[in-house]
């Protein structure tokens, strides 16, 4: 047990922050967590599960109940540093701003990363124009932490149904999942069967959603308001499982509606985190260590606003979002009711994440690349009712400009191509790290407190577009095999004529505070400590050296658990 009564101050309360708070508090530390957003839970740390005000409410979602309001906390976006002004201002790939962070709205997909993600440079080689790097540790360093978190949070899945090649070959498991898979969503099942018919290897998508009562939380009743919504029944596992444990120690103070805006430094040591609350009151919370866990973009922004020493100009660099490809299979003979489900999609396919997928190497070579990787495909799912209607509104203005409303709109709503007849495929799309994809402070735009907002510069590189071109026909083929009348697959953020930019909407926010062994080419060490400081740590997805090809939350938590154990002095190894 480490020396007790040490104190950590944490910016954030999401996936990474909750792991650290629990680990440190259970090791005897005092912890103060400062969360920018509101707390929508009553009784957290006292009653379990806590009461929530989340509900099956599509309008509340569109009014930014969970997301940062774009007027209060805007971001800016451009596709290249050569765009000096006139670029987009608004929401950019936002994660929720609430107690629990991204895990409050996530779809709760919890696959693991692969061995090659951690040793991408040494196992797969460099890529022209990209900054591919190895992580400071291998898959084997996380394997037992993945096991542990799957138990702690409660993940459903079926190890026996997972393909030996490529999934178990690249992400070997010591044991099965603590819960079996829930019932299949009709749309997911159709697409999964289509993939199987083509000789591919789909399987039940591991999720932090209860298929049976677990950890004091109820079984999921398949209401469908899952991805992008707070769970009304607490059937979804999340950062709350860890926050609750942290609070139970009595050594954790969680302050919501309190935004950290600066790391207070004295030489190489941080003395605390400066905050501002909703009423404009300011203060500094002092501690022995400070931990930035505000997510990929926000932690980098905080480091930049604090002027942390950055002699090699690495802070904010190598932002990764995944580069999604969307497939749409339209079923004209059946209503698929994808809204009846325990998750956005109940099945997935990892075959396209494999650089050795049939034909992928040859296609890459033809394009002058050493390899290409697509990514995990989420099978099934469809659109929600308000977005569906808004899309028809937009389409009618394009195809029937003389009267873009009226009965045709209602006919479209009744037919419901988009909501009730689409089975989707969402390919995550591994994106390589590039120094040119980054976060900087916007020179003009400020948030509601007057602090500079993050300016995001992001564009896909050659690898991403070549991989997408290669996999689009396979995605379409799976949808046809699934029985879709018509199908199409397209880049998930196609820039259209007249659009200011192609905004990423993936909610996978990685990099910016890269972990590495070399101070010249990374920001933090393997334990998350900023190289140029003695006690500033980064504990979120910002530290990822590569993006992987899977949903990142479980890996964020596993990486942070490894860091936090080390910090607490309770690590059993390394």
């Amino acid at each position, binding site marked *: 047990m480490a020396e007790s009564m040490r104190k950590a101050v944490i910016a954030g309360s999401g996936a990474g922050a909750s792991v650290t708070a629990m680990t440190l508090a259970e090791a005897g530390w005092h912890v103060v967590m400062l969360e920018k957003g*509101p707390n*929508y839970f009553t009784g957290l740390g006292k009653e379990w599960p806590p009461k*929530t*005000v*989340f*509900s*099956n*409410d*599509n*309008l*509340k979602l569109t009014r930014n*109940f969970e997301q940062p*309001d*774009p*007027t*209060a906390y805007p971001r800016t976006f451009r596709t290249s540093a050569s765009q000096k002004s006139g670029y987009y201002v608004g929401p950019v790939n936002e994660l929720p701003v609430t107690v629990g962070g991204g895990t409050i709205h996530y779809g709760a997909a919890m696959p693991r990363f692969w061995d090659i993600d951690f040793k991408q440079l040494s196992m797969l080689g460099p890529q022209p124009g990209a900054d591919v790097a190895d992580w400071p540790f291998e898959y084997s360093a996380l394997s037992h932490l993945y096991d542990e978190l799957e138990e702690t949070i409660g993940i459903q899945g079926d190890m026996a149904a997972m393909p030996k090649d490529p999934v178990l070959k690249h992400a070997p498991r010591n044991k099965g999942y603590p819960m079996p898979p*829930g*019932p299949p969503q*009709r749309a997911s099942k159709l697409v999964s069967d289509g993939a199987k018919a083509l000789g591919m290897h789909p399987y039940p998508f591991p999720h932090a959603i209860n298929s049976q009562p677990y950890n004091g939380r109820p079984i*999921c*009743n*398949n209401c*469908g*308001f899952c991805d992008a919504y*707070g769970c*009304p029944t607490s059937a979804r596992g999340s950062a709350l499982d860890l926050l609750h444990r942290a609070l139970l120690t009595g050594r954790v103070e969680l302050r919501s509606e309190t935004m950290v805006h600066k790391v207070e430094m004295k030489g190489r040591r941080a003395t605390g985190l400066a905050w501002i609350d*909703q*009423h404009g009151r300011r203060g500094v919370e002092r501690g022995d260590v400070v931990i930035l866990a505000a997510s990929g973009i926000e932690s980098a922004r905080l480091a930049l606003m604090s002027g942390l020493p950055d002699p090699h100009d690495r802070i904010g660099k190598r932002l990764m979002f995944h580069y999604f490809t969307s497939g*749409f299979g339209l079923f*004209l*003979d*059946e*209503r698929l*009711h994808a809204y009846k*489900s325990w998750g956005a999609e109940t099945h997935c396919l990892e075959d396209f994440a494999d650089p050795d997928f049939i034909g992928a190497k040859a296609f890459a070579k033809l394009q002058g690349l050493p390899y290409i990787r697509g990514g995990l495909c989420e099978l099934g799912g469809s659109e929600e009712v*308000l977005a569906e209607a808004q*899309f028809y*509104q*937009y*389409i009618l203005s*394009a195809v029937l*400009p*003389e009267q873009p*409303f*009226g*009965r045709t*709109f*209602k*006919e*479209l709503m009744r037919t*419901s191509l988009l*909501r*009730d007849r689409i089975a989707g495929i969402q390919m995550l799309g591994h994106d390589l790290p590039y120094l040119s994809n980054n976060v900087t402070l916007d020179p003009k735009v400020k948030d*509601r407190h007057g602090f500079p907002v993050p300016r995001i510069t992001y564009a896909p590189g050659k690898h991403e577009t070549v991989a997408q071109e290669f996999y689009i026909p396979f995605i379409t083929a799976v949808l046809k095999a699934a029985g879709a009348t018509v199908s*199409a697959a*397209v880049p998930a*953020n*196609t820039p259209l004529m*007249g*659009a200011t930019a192609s905004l990423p909407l993936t909610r996978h926010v990685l990099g910016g505070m890269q972990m590495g062994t070399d101070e010249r080419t990374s920001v933090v060490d393997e334990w998350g400590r900023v190289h140029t400081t003695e006690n500033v740590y980064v504990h979120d997805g910002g530290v990822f050296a590569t993006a992987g090809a899977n949903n990142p939350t479980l890996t964020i938590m596993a990486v942070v658990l490894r860091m936090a154990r080390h910090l607490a002095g309770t690590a059993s190894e390394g």
Partner: protein
Amino acid sequence: MNITRRRVLGTTALLPLAALVPDLLAESQAAAAASQKAGGSAYKFFSAHEAAVVDAATRRIAPGPEDDLLEIGHPGAHECDVVRYIDTLLAMFSFSTPKLFAGGPWSNRHTKGGPDHMKTFVKPDRAQAGAWRARVKELQKTYRAGVKSLDAHANGDFTKVSTIQQDLILAKSGVAPFTTVMFGHTIEGMYSNPEYGGNKGLAGWKEIGYPGDSQPRGYTAKEMAQIDVDIVDPTGIVSMLLGDFEKIAQTYASGVWRRG
């Protein structure tokens, strides 16, 4: 687009559905009484005339049985009480807790006699409240000016011109941005949870075969697996969209149609 026989909407036709249904009639009479007290308007933001104009306009955007013969049996904006929804939106800060975020974890639609938790709105934090105060203020101006503009294009009273003229006015380049705003709110008023003031009697959801909120009931495994055969009529607007499905998919994926 062939225009079918449409009737001219008079101010007396403001609550025609209510006349057909006894309990709605009582409600409409109560509303009328309240309207007398409030100096002519049953609404919190709209004047009686503004409400009538927005009603007429949203009837064109999403016509119901009274507005389009081919929509018989299919409730539209009026039947969903879209005007009430928009008025509640524009007056959200006049309620003790702003009608911005309905509560949870569920309504009383699937409980027998339980409370409707969604009716208890959640207090926004200061960042949210500040942003929405500014947004609502802008929308109030948009509606005040928009109604005036509709009236001006109709020689004084939008509700008095024929529905054909109303359609032409709503599609005019000068008016179209306001029509777009009203269309967005018509969508919200028809397909959102009724606690926000629209989707009266769940007419919007029923019309499109969508169950809406399902908690605390949810769906069974059997309901999830259900094979629901229903063949689309592949003519009309559907055939137009299927004609270039890839283009439609690209437009969808671009996200340009999403509102911030």
